[in-house]
């Protein structure tokens, strides 16, 4: 157990290091000379050389990489062009809205996906199974940004059930103090019902669209895991013993798949961050995804590299957590 954990930590360290290298390479692929980008075409030879030295570009590549890695590890990402502030401060500001959206989306993904998967497994081959399969296929095949746009047309413009893009109406902007950074929780803490309702009406649609993809994956895998368990002999034994079907299903079969499910959920949560990039663009959600795309479109490489690195690191850590959960919770791996 200890040796396995140590080996895994080593592998995570190697992956993180490779991630740094990959980001460094991406940063060096710029088709334009980074020095010219700073000083302009008309700069004299002396200015060019001076800036080049100051940027450290006259050093050997390995030393440049070493500096880059040290800076990144310490969170010195440089400053962003659009906001003019350090990238690290921007990231601290844009992450809470994304985490709020992703968590809400994940809650929907689990709330819809798990029951749908269980039903599909129980009624395999029947109409419930087919409906679950179709919803799953749409969740996998429809572009999330298109679903978002169509959702806005139907639920915002036509039915008026939800509010439009953004996290909250301008009128309520700044009404509650950001304590946790999660608007729903902050509004609850401040006891401000109006803000709570408004924030709710803004988040519900993007979170549902984001959660649909997760629900599709979770339901398909829940179905597969459960079918595998239900076909085994211990189920027959438990039934023959006289246990009710519900008890066998939940206490025996479901308990056995719960570890696998947790792994799937942790990994899907990481992928929600990816989905957030497009969803946030559609819904003008002031989170990480929109910050990332805005930085991209303005060619702000400091911000782009920092975002890439952070998402990569989150993925690596999530993968590690999923693995760890498996090892801690499943007695068979001990």
């Amino acid at each position, binding site marked *: 157990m200890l040796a396995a954990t140590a080996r895994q930590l080593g592998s995570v360290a190697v992956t993180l290091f490779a991630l740094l290298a990959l980001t460094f390479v991406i940063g060096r692929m710029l088709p334009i000379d980074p020095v010219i980008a700073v000083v302009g075409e008309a700069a004299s030879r002396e200015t060019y050389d001076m800036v080049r030295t100051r940027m450290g570009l006259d050093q050997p590549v390995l030393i440049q990489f070493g500096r880059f890695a040290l800076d990144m590890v310490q969170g010195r990402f440089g400053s962003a062009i659009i906001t003019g502030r350090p990238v690290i401060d921007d990231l601290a500001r844009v992450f809470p809205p994304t985490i709020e959206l992703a968590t809400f989306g994940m809650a929907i993904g689990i709330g819809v996906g798990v029951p749908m998967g269980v039903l599909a497994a129980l009624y395999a081959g029947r109409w419930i199974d087919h409906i679950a399969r179709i919803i799953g296929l749409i969740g996998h095949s429809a572009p999330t940004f298109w679903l978002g746009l169509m959702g806005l*047309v139907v639920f915002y413009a036509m039915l008026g059930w939800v509010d439009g893009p953004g996290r909250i109406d301008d009128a309520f902007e700044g009404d509650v103090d950001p304590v946790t950074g999660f608007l729903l929780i902050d509004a609850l803490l401040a006891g401000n019902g109006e803000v709570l309702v408004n924030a709710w009406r803004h988040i519900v649609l993007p979170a549902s669209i984001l959660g649909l993809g997760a629900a599709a994956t979770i339901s398909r895998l829940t179905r597969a895991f459960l079918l595998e368990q239900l076909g085994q002999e211990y189920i027959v034994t438990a039934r023959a013993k006289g246990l009710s079907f519900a008890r066998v299903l939940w206490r025996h079969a479901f308990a056995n798949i719960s570890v696998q499910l947790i792994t799937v959920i942790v990994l899907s949560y990481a992928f929600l961050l990816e989905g957030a990039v*497009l969803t946030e663009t559609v819904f003008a959600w002031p989170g990480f995804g929109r910050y990332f*795309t805005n930085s*991209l479109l303005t060619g702000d490489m400091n911000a782009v590299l920092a975002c890439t690195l952070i998402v*990569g690191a989150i993925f690596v850590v999530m993968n590690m957590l999923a693995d760890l959960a498996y090892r801690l919770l499943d007695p068979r791996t001990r």
Partner: protein
Amino acid sequence: MSVVAWLTAPEITSPRQARAQRLYALWRAFRTNPMGLPSALVILALILAAAAAPLLARHDPYVQDLATRLRPPDRLHILGTDELGRDVFARLVFGARTSLAIAFLVAAIVGPVGLLIGTVAGYLGGWTDRVLMRLVDLFLAFPGLILALAFIAALGPGVDHAIMAVSLTAWPPIARLARAETLTIRKTDYIAAARLTGASWPRVVLRHIMPMCLPSVIVRLTLNMAGIVLTAAGLSFLGLGARPPAPEWGAMLSTGRQYLLGAWWLAAAPGLAIMMLSLAFNLLGDSLRDALDPRRG
């Protein structure tokens, strides 16, 4: 002897008959899945529509007519017109060329690359395997879209850069699959026989291992095409793939977004097209996998 009898005869007399019989068995397994043939036909129809775009579209996809801008669907423009008065159907049909070209070009790049890396890593083992698979893990540990976006940020927007960026993120699953297949094949007797005849390792990999990995790689590629279509459309939607005025589905969606509330058909049509293509690839991949799965026999 009838063709079917030849295709099912238990006594096989030629390698050609053996190959034909295998394909025929595959075809019959494929036919048992009700979604297989329709999804293949949808993809074929889209390819044909893209090829015959000038014949299908009654309007030029580039010609602007500001007098008839943002018209809802009617008899003359069956899917309406866009913000510059261009026919949406014509742009959709011509846009199929770009979207399909991106998807198939990416597949044409990542298929062979993934196959080569996977088989070489699996056959040679040792350090080659360790280094290559670490690289695969690194790319797999990364969300594809974010990585593609980062590459485009460095390379600059455009269709060719989008193809490169998506390819960079799409080869690792293929390589991992090919490696797993290779590991099961490399211990077989016929590989040992090939080596005893003095075949060099590139020859063994190219002639004896790769052909055996091909079916599962094609299935995985077909399934991944769905994701490739979505990622490519997402890049264009963000303004990083195909640029206006070129008709492309993701880019059309992006302009449609600005007129969403007044002219919903502008965004609805290209989105449906993307979904249809991606759904067809998903279903086709599923049925191909079922047909090739020996457990289903």
